[in-house]
């Protein structure tokens, strides 16, 4: 086996065999689902104690309109309004004062409280009153059957969104679902680039700081050592992705095979529409490889330049900013996947691997994909070449941190 192969093998096997990798890979999908479920669950439970809102209704007309909810308990005041002003009774959340006919005088209602009132309290009260008042007003017109007429006149359009493919065939899609898929892949590629890029940097630094690099480069070319590391760790990332794909899509696939009529699967089909998950996975792999190699080579260069973890910060900062910018560009592109931000960010190589993931579920024309990939590959080749120069000098340089001027000198060697 050639040297590159031996290096790749070590980089790959030592990481894949680690307990932490195995556990994390298996647990991650569950953790992710658990996290989302947890957030949904927490936001769905309201607090046990409904907040008490005392109502001082001078008209006597409106109190009955305010119905108790899970969050708010409306209580008729037994004392006058002035008594509540100084009263710091903890059990009273707010005091609602209605001082006149709201139809004639809509300002005659005020909510007082010691604390800033949350907006849901305001909307609960106003929407209840608005509805009551509208009906009252309608009644005051004395037109028979007016309510029915109005109800009938409320038209709601039920629009289906149907996409035409090239042959004019119709397929149904759900824009939200497409966006969700895009976001999942965007986050995935963002996390992968960060995690595995950082892993490359750690690996390079480890070899440099414990000086094993000197033993190795006496038998392997520095370029092979660097490429071995990049490829080996990249394969670890693809392995992880592959396992997740198997864990998530495996049951779905088996399901379609053995129980094609299960309701869940029937439900999934129209959502997916013509979003070709296989195609997206393919592009994910292409853009992951490109984006990973591009960023990991920058990280490798950083690892080769520094002597300790603390020194990395200075060089990491600009790269972090670019990656985070790419993520935000991706998130905003969901709103308008064909807009100028989405288009340019999915062409610019430093952001394209992340942003393109958002756009893929919304049918991107083939030349855009091709151009984006071509630009990415060109950048990868350029970056790897530049990194190789920094790397082979950097790994044997100990002592002080190199200045930017010195690094430029290394590039010219």
């Amino acid at each position: 086996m050639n040297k590159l192969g031996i290096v790749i093998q070590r980089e790959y096997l030592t990481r894949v065999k680690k307990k932490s990798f195995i556990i994390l890979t298996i647990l991650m999908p569950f953790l992710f689902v658990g996290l989302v479920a947890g957030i949904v669950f927490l936001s769905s439970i309201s607090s046990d104690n409904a907040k008490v809102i005392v109502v001082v209704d001078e008209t006597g007309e409106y109190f009955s309109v305010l119905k108790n909810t899970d969050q708010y308990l409306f209580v008729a005041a037994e004392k006058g309004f002035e008594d509540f002003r100084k009263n710091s009774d903890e059990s009273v959340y707010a005091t609602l004062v209605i001082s006149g006919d709201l139809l004639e005088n809509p300002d005659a209602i005020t909510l007082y409280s010691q604390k800033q009132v949350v907006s849901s309290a305001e909307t609960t009260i106003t929407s209840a009153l608005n509805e009551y008042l509208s009906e009252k007003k309608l009644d005051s017109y004395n037109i028979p059957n007016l309510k029915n007429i109005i109800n009938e006149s409320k038209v709601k359009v039920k629009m289906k969104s149907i996409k035409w493919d090239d042959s004019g065939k119709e397929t149904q899609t759900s824009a939200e679902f497409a966006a969700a898929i895009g976001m999942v892949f965007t986050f995935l590629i963002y996390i992968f680039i960060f995690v595995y890029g950082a892993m490359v940097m750690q690996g390079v630094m480890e070899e440099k700081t414990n000086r094993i690099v000197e033993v190795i480069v006496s038998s392997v070319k520095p370029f092979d050592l660097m490429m071995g590391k990049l490829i080996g760790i990249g394969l670890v990332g693809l392995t992880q992705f592959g396992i997740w794909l198997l864990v998530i899509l495996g049951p779905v696939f088996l399901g379609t095979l053995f129980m094609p009529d299960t309701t869940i699967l029937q439900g999934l089909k129209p959502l997916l529409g013509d979003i070709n998950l296989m195609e997206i996975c393919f592009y994910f792999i292409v853009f992951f490889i490109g984006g990973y190699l591009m960023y990991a080579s920058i990280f490798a260069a950083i690892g080769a330049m520094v002597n300790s973890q603390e020194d990395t910060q200075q060089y990491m900062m600009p790269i972090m900013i670019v990656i985070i910018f790419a993520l935000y560009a991706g998130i905003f592109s969901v709103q308008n996947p064909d807009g100028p931000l989405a288009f340019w960010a999915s062409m610019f190589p430093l952001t394209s691997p992340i942003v393109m993931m958002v756009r893929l579920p919304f049918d991107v024309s083939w030349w855009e994909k091709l151009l984006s990939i071509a630009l990415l590959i060109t950048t990868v080749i350029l970056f790897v070449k530049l990194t190789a120069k920094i790397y082979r000098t950097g790994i044997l340089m100990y002592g002080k941190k190199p200045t930017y001027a010195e690094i430029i000198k290394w590039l010219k060697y």
Partner: protein
Amino acid sequence: MLFLETKEVVKQYANHLALDKVSVQVNEQKIFGLLGPNGAGKTTLIRIINRITAPDSGEVIFKNRPLAPDDIYNIGYLPEERGLYKKMKVGEQAVYLARLKGLSAAEAKTRLKIWFKKFDILSWWDKKLEELSKGMQQKVQFIVTVVHEPELLIFDEPFSGFDPLNTELLKNEILELKEKGKTIIFSTHNMASVEEICDEIALINQSKVVLNGDVTAIRSQNKKHIFKIQTENENLQIDPTICEILSREKGYHTTTFRVRKLKDISNAEYLLFLLQQNEIISFEEEIPSMNDIFIQTVTKNN
């Protein structure tokens, strides 16, 4: 026979000249000591021989032809700054490093097991490196250096970090390698070990070779013609034209004198002169230690 030779090797770093036309000759089956103060350029020269860095000019001749990329399989290198993967299992990484030196996985494993047994660390094969003591790590590093049985071995400060027991073990290993016909380049500050095991040396100071040749020859060339003479008498009868007494130290029954020979005569003649007038118990010429020669040459140069 000349095994390795560097010819006018020059290496310029950004701000300083690391090697200035350095030419050294290493004979086959000899232990060659590469000496010099810190920062003299020893490590740079070793890296050039290892093909880790390329010289700006000059060339390295290996077995009568220019050094080629594949020659690195024929070199074992123990760098001054030792390093192995801390989190990796000892046996696994030894096999990995041996494979990078061109051995097959199976071959590497068989040979390594033999070495591990010899150094009494076989039970640590499946342990992570960080669990080993420093001395054991050094042993692993040494094994990794020699396992592919290269013809040329380069040891950069091999004894640093070893306890006396392991130093002895390592010294014997190095001498055994020489017996087996290997050529060894040995870089060190430890002058006592140079006298003990080196056949030839080159002293590099400020990027230049300032002294080189056979160790015994160098030491006798640097002789100052000072002798230690022990007599039964308290006084030494001498001819002031050929002898100068430098110091006198009285013992219980005897007296020891340090004297300098002032005339260019052989030691035998000189002793004859002294014997005529004195009852001499012992007569010994002081041969300068490598340590003295090192300090003397370097300070003179600076």
